[in-house]
């Protein structure tokens, strides 16, 4: 009953928002009178001040249709997933996907024509997971990535150099741990959530192979994941911090000497620590290993249940393909993201020096994006196993065997549906 009550409330609140915003649009900018086409565009709530005003400015500048922006706080992925089942959802929405099930379920429109001619200008690592059987279903807006922040002074005091391999990371974390400061913060769950497939890529493996098989059915996987257990067992990890990994607070407050966090934390870290920090990719492990950083992009997608699909596509093309000035503004003026367009990323002065330049280099050289075929079911199976390996000391080989079985079944399911 809890769920249905919750959903009901959510739906009620959603309807409320829709009504309120509809009123707002009628009384406010209704005079824009643009042939009567009205489009609803959804964004998740960005933390940085100014972003909401910016996207509303872009929408207002579009003359061919009347675009209403909805800024949606809360669990955005679930809101969109639920809204796509109905006719009252958005026409255009940003999505951390779209997911394979959304594409296969024909919930989102094919946007391949929109990027014709400029497809090569989009960062291929983030465009790939939005592409299914050669068709593009989401247009990358900006790139986000994650990396390891470390405090130079604390490392120097402990006589530790920035780790270049996973073994060095484990040792460094142990040596940096004291009564007051922990060596490393990988999130309050011990790393199972945020690291995901990153250690596998650092071991030279992958989540899903080119031909759609589980990419970590290999003894190296168990070896690498077993090392994460050592971090936990040696009590080098910070756990139970008031703010989780995505927030640099634990690092800034000196609760930890190293922290895994996102590019978005960089301005704040820079402001508070000045030069006393550095950034690293997740270090390589084993002979076939190479450093890795996860990259991802929110993409603009068009709902297949919208009333004005063609108008919506035209708008998406205008904003996320043609108006590079807005794209640049969106990526760089508020939060801290890398533009999804290579040409824009190259131009950005902010990304040419210091840790930001390192981050861009990691993204180009070591970036991997979660494959489209890596579905939530696979993700849950893998993440559960990783948590058990790290926290309970479960045998990595046995755990991985189960995961490979579940993931293979899931991959079979998705590759056999048309």
């Amino acid at each position: 009953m809890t769920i249905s009550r919750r959903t009901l409330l959510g739906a009620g609140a959603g309807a409320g928002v829709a009504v309120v915003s509809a009123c707002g649009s009628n009384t406010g900018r209704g005079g824009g009178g643009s042939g009567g086409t009205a489009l609803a565009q959804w964004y998740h709530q960005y933390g940085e001040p100014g972003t909401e005003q910016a996207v509303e400015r872009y929408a207002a500048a579009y003359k061919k249709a009347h675009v209403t922006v909805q800024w949606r706080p809360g669990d955005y992925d679930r809101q969109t997933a639920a809204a796509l089942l109905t006719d009252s959802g958005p026409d255009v929405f940003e999505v951390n996907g779209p997911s394979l099930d959304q594409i296969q379920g024909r919930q989102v429109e094919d946007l391949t024509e929109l990027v014709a001619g400029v497809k090569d200008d989009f960062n291929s690592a983030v465009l790939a997971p939005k592409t299914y059987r050669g068709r593009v279903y989401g247009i990358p807006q900006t790139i986000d990535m994650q990396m390891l922040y470390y405090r130079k002074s604390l490392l120097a005091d402990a006589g530790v150099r920035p780790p270049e391999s996973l073994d060095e990371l484990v040792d460094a974390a142990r040596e940096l741990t004291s009564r007051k400061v922990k060596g490393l913060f990988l999130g309050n769950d011990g790393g199972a959530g945020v690291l995901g497939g990153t250690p596998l890529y650092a071991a030279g493996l992958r989540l899903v192979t080119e031909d759609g098989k589980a990419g970590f059915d290999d003894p190296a996987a168990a070896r690498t994941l077993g090392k994460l257990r050592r971090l936990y067992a040696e009590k080098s990890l910070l756990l139970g911090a008031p703010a989780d990994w995505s927030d640099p607070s634990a690092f800034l407050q000196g609760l930890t000497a190293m922290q895994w966090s996102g590019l978005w934390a960089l301005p704040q870290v820079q402001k508070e620590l000045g030069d006393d920090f550095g950034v690293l990719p997740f270090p390589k492990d084993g002979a076939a290993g190479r450093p890795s950083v996860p990259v991802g992009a929110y993409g603009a997608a068009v709902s297949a249940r919208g009333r004005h699909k063609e108008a919506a596509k035209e708008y998406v093309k205008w904003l996320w393909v043609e108006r590079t000035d807005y794209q640049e503004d969106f990526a760089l003026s508020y939060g801290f993201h890398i533009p999804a367009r290579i040409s824009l990323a190259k131009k950005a002065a902010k990304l040419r020096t210091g840790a930001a330049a390192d981050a861009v280099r990691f993204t180009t050289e070591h970036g991997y994006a979660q494959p489209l075929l890596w579905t939530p079911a696979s993700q849950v199976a893998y993440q559960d196993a990783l948590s058990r390996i790290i926290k309970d000391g479960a045998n990595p080989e046995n755990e991985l065997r189960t995961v490979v079985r579940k993931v293979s079944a899931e991959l079979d399911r998705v590759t056999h549906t048309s």
Partner: protein
Amino acid sequence: MRRRRVLWFWVFVGPFTIGLALFTYVPLLWSVGLSFFDAHNTVTPTHFVGLDNYVSMLRDDAFTGSLRTFLVFTAFIVPVTFALSLALALMVNRVRRARAFFRSVFFLPAACSYVVAALIWKMSIFNGVRFGLANTLLGWFHTDPVAWLSTTDPPWYWLVIVTVRLWLQAGFYMILFLAGLQRIDPVLYEAAAVDGARPGWTVLRHITLPQLRATSVAVALLLVVNAFQAFDEFYNLLSDARGYPPYARPPLVYLYYTALGQGQNLGLGSAGAVILALIIAVVTVGQARWLRLGRTEADG
């Protein structure tokens, strides 16, 4: 006249019936229907799969594991809350001064939301760093800070989950017990005293508890149903942006991720919900039979 009565019956009952049908029975039946279909990202599926969803749900060790979690939790929280709220009621009932004060103080937490309480427990009392309340206490005894919610060996997270629910619930059930206690005829105690029963255990065992039977049955039933519906404090204590850890994951939380999360496997989620509903129905009916709910003390 008769027609008028019928009309008025529907005027009063109609809106509720419609609401109940629309928001409870239709979704319920719809969900049962979905459980027989492959319903990825759709509520109007076309691909009938029979009992496949049930089979894969019952074979899913994460789901069966969550059922176990939930039994352990119920087996623990029900007797503990029961004993604590009964003890509180007995104590508060004997207080002679500031009765209203004590009653309100113990009842107040019942007015707090699960979400708020869970966040306070998670972020200030039981956070894992050295300045959390629990860890500050440990620090006085020179013990290392404990990451309460992240440690699986020993499973400290149960301490957090159980205490938050106890704090929230005990006051409410205390009030129920108090009401029961006040219905007991003082003559019984006087008679017992005349017969030489010493106040304390003997009186409690032979007079108070038997007289509280009806209240106790209701409390036990409510506690079990509440435990079965546990979601809020688990979700708010343990979930993060990346999901939920594989421990202390009750079935509702697991189904929430399967059906309503990015998984959007509504068929599988519905199958799980039906299984869960059946279990709850069987347990509740069994318990009601066993405890002879609805009979008065006189029926024995």
